[in-house]
């Protein structure tokens, strides 16, 4: 594993995807993007990521399903849900399915950075 952590961003809205990619690249990560759950799974199969950031409401394979599938496959990478859903049920369901962190939109990019750092630190242990 190289020193630079690889991050996969899964979001169906291009603007968000681009903005996140920009920010995280600036933070010094190696960033990759996918526009839906299915593409994300394909990417994860061929590459190893240290962290995955995923939206929930996406066409076809939702973020919930994505987490579930990843965790079932034994992917180690922590998954951070980043969504405009902010109901209690959504949060509970996300963690129940194995998500490692949860943030709602509008989100602070700086807060996101800190959380990513923390998740990576925990994952290394």
């Amino acid at each position: 594993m190289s020193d630079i952590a690889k991050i996969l961003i899964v979001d169906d809205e291009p603007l968000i995807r681009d903005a996140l990619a920009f920010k995280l690249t600036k933070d010094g990560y190696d960033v990759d993007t996918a526009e839906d759950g299915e593409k994300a799974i394909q990417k994860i199969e061929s590459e190893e990521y240290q962290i995955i950031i995923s939206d929930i409401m996406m066409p076809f394979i939702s973020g919930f399903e994505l987490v579930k599938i990843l965790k079932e496959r034994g992917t180690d990478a922590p998954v951070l849900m980043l969504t405009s859903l902010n109901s209690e049920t959504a949060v509970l369901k996300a963690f129940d399915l194995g998500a490692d962190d949860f943030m709602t939109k509008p989100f602070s990019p700086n807060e996101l950075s800190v959380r990513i750092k923390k998740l990576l630190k925990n994952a290394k242990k």
Partner: protein
Amino acid sequence: MRRFFTETYYFLVALEPRYKIVLFLVISLLILAAVMVIIVLRERSRKNSVENRERRISRSVEPIIQEIVFSEYDGGEFKDAIKKINRIVDSALYRKSNMAILNELILYYHRNLGGEAFNRLEMLYREIGLKQIALDNLRTGEWHIKAKAINDLSTMRMGESLFDILQYTDYENQNVRYEAQYAAVKLGGKKAMGFLDDLDTPMSEWQQIRLLDQSLKFEYELIDRVGKWLRSENNSVVVFGLMIMRHLNQYHEKGELRKLLYHKDEKVQEKAIETARELAYAECLENLYEVYELTKKIRIKKQILRAMGDLGGSKEVGFLRETIAREKEYDLVFEAAQSLKRMGRRDVLISYKEQELSEKGESIVKHILDDRI
């Protein structure tokens, strides 16, 4: 050639009037149709070019905005970036529409981002002149332009425009009024909610949801107006008051809440019971029994049974158990069983004796005990 025209002319003149009318109509319709086809096609080209322009502008502005939002820019760099954007949107013909495209882009980012990024976007919005455009639109636009301007200003949290917006909280057009009220709460906080005290027009659920959404940001501050709202003649204000009470834990008006349990409007009554349950207002259980007896409405009874599940003790367990055995209404048996389960009393649900439950009751109890559902 000339002869042809004169002949046609005389032919037409000689026609009966009804022929003339119909012929005239047919020809004008054909011309109309042709003109419309041309307009449609031109409109199509125009829209396509607008879309292309939109794409082009987004593509070139996006990286600049990203830089502004995510980098540690100093004053000079910020000014440069603004100059760059200005150059992109500048155009003799399309400046107005370019600015509108830029506006949507910034709003989109703003809706999704928070924290420091948020502040930067606000600064950008001001500096680039979009705020001024919104204020001008607010003053001179048609109702939908006004409403949009207010919405933009409040989305971008332009606190200094609160005063301009407040003038529209009782504007004649409902849409503008709604936007202004929402903006007032967003920009002015709970003080700006005074307009609810004597609102006499019904407030839509949509508006209630939006105002609630804003109010949730007040955290758990005390909102002393709630009492007034609960006493309002306007049912939509009462319901909103109850929502605020519930979601912001405003315990101080419990007396009012108890009275509302008997309210004659079904929606208010239902909301009141729900609120009592959410606030764990166990002292009102006696009133709930009373309301249960008084009301014929299934929705209200369901709400009460649910409340008992959250607030009740052993006495309520007995009541719920009875209800399951005696009650004929599916929904009520269902609700009662669910309440027992929520109270952690699976034992009660399992312990029904043979023949004690109807076939239906039995299947409902089974349903509730099935954790997979």
